[in-house]
């Protein structure tokens, strides 16, 4: 090994050899990192949930209720699959999961609409076993309700003696337009996959580095010199820079996941993100005794990191203690930065009137990288002394 003049270069090359000669690490670093995004894309292939089956209980059996149902059935979100004569029958269908919603028109529905002072009610029952059922049923029904309501209002104003045009203007006095910015499809995959891509990078690096550390410890091949720290980090960085560029830059463009960010911004984001994860993982790996124990112990952190970052559950609703803790996890900053840049068009290099700056998260990642670099140096130093004592 004396052919390397500098110990850093030596440990860099040694680490690359150790990674590629270890099928276990190759599986985690390369196979899992590339396969997982494909699996998740296949899983969430249909962005929207369509044709949620709904049962109808129409006790009024009136032209008005039929018109309402006809209009609702036209929406792609739901499909009216069963017509029931009683609530009990519909509840039975819901209980057996044949339908995920029930719409109920009471007897007096038509009468209340015809009465100029009446108020008609529709009852809507949503299956809460998945929140996406409720979203599909409730929002589409609400839309139809608002439209029908306007027609009824116009009729009633006309009955009061207003002329039709005035009634129409009054009802439509403040029309609105709604726009989903950045991710117009609003699908589940568009929302989750960017966050999952960042999590895959984070967790495969963590598990892989712990496996490398545990293996070295099992084989009494530990090297806790400063040169080794830099060399090992460098080897992981080299491999992961390529992988991250594929996952974050190429993958969303290939599979139609939102990608309005600039490539150079994404590459720029990758640098501190990877450094922070690598030094964080090197810190953790010092405590890992066996090749496999890292995976067994840390597998559930994947879910904890995901939720703690405040992506599926809004960060504003996370108790302060967990939020502060989350600031120490590179994933928290990395995931938000990537979503801001990739999915919402924020930027690092091209900030102007249109693109906000994602600099806060970027700087936080650099601070974390520096923090964990110092921590790792310290832990390596302590561990080195311990290993020498044991010898």
């Amino acid at each position, binding site marked *: 090994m004396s052919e390397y003049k500098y110990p850093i270069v030596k440990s860099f090359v040694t680490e690359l050899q150790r990674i590629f000669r270890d099928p*276990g690490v190759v599986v985690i670093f390369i196979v899992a990192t590339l396969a997982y995004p494909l699996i998740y894309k296949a*899983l969430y292939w249909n962005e929207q949930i369509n044709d949620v089956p709904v049962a109808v209980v129409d006790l009024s059996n009136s032209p008005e209720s039929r018109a309402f149902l006809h209009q609702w059935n036209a929406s792609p979100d739901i499909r009216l699959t069963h017509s029931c004569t009683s609530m009990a029958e519909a509840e039975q269908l*819901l209980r057996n999961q044949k339908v995920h919603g029930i719409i109920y028109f009471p007897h007096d529905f038509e009468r209340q609409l015809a009465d100029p002072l009446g108020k008609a009610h*529709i009852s809507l029952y949503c299956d809460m076993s998945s929140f996406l059922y409720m979203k599909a049923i409730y929002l589409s029904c609400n839309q139809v309700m608002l439209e029908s309501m306007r027609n009824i209002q116009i009729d009633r104003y006309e009955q009061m003696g207003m002329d039709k045009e005035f009634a129409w203007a009054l009802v439509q006095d403040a*029309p*609105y337009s709604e726009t989903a910015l950045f991710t117009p499809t609003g699908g589940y995959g568009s929302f989750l996959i960017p966050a999952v891509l960042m999590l895959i990078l984070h967790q495969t690096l963590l598990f892989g580095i712990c496996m490398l550390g545990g293996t070295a410890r099992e084989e009494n091949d530990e090297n806790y010199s400063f040169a080794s720290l830099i060399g090992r980090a460098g080897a992981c960085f080299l491999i992961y820079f390529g992988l991250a560029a594929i996952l974050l830059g190429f993958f969303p463009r290939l599979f139609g996941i939102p990608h309005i960010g600039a490539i150079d911004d994404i590459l720029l984001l990758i640098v501190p993100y990877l450094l922070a994860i690598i030094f964080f993982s090197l810190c953790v790996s010092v405590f890992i005794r066996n090749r496999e124990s890292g995976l*067994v112990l840390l597998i559930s952190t994947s879910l*904890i990191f995901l939720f703690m970052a405040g992506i599926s559950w809004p960060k504003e609703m996370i108790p302060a203690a967990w939020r502060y803790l989350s600031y120490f996890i590179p994933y928290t900053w990395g995931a938000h930065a990537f979503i801001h840049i990739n999915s919402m068009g924020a930027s690092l290099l091209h900030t102007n009137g249109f693109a906000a*700056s994602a600099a806060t998260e970027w700087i936080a990642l650099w601070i974390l990288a520096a923090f964990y670099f110092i921590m790792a140096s310290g832990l390596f130093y302590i561990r080195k002394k311990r290993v020498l004592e044991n010898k």
Partner: protein
Amino acid sequence: MKIILQNIWRVLLRELKMMFARPLYLFASVGVMLLSTFFFLTLMKGGAAEKMPMAVVDLDQTTISRRLIHEMQATPSVDIQLITNSYPEARQAMQNGKIYGIFVIREGFYRDLVSFKRPQIDFYVTNAYTVGGNTTYKQMLTMANLVSGAFQREVLRKKGLTDDVIMHRIQPLAIEGHMVANPWGNYSIYLVSTILPGILGLICLMLTIFAIGFELKARTSHAWLRAAGGNYTIAMIGKLIPYTLIYLILGIGCHLILYRFVGFPVYGSTGRLMFGLLLFILAMEALGITMIGLLPTLRDALSIGALYSMLGFSLSGFTYPQMAMLPPVKALSYLEPLRHYYLIYVNEALMAAPVENSLPNALALTAFMLASLCVAPRLHRALVYWNYPLK
């Protein structure tokens, strides 16, 4: 018979010694489960997204626009954190992840409203954060409709109508939403009910693989079989008894915490739900045996086990419903024990469905247990001949 019991006892004692010699076993089971339970139960505060930050772009700046802002601020679901007269500023705040929605009141809104020129309200949401985006969207939609209602009320008042009469003209039709089995729309109940059992299953799977695989890796399997008098069945029973007890106690504890202590609702039978959870735990343990039996190299079995069980969280269909998945993915979801536990949970806890609805899922979980018997000859050979790659 006495000899069999003696052998089981000997294996069991050996296992207990190993278990307490390595902190990993207890930490990865009891420690991880306690931490996860504490984490997920404290993460979501009340379980409803409240005070989601949003922005109002007030270009009108009249009494009516200010009243609108005031009324919106009074609602529990949103918190107006930014009032500005610059749309780009609001858009940038959204790109920075500071707000989830933008409500725009155009210039001349009040003037146009009173002169029946139908001024438009625009609102924008982000779908990059799904819960925050949805909550804000619903509130802005309600608000846009309220504006219309409030103005109609003013006009009708001037025409000399009483408030009572007016209300029925403005709101002739209403939807009463009912969220079946989770009337509070509590996100925590929805999420934690499946995610915590899922984590417990993950622990069972990984630790079972580890406990058996480590004997293979450390080449201690001969000593293990010797303790069992050379009998594979006795060796497995003795080894798995302590772990199974730990898993079952953790399962019962988790169940009691969720449904007794925290008070998540169960509309069907708590006994059957708990039975379902115990079946699920045993199925995950059996799946662990199957995996190490098929892949006797510890590292391979653990990597596959991790991949398989992490996918279970998505494939179970509790977030993204199974009905929206592609057919091959749908088929795959039945191979995840968590999918079956989730369905039992829906039947028992939410739908109070007849027991025969859960029967296929209970049978499927039992099938996972029986499947682990099929790998017995292969695993036995591996224990005896060490015929697998070591690293």
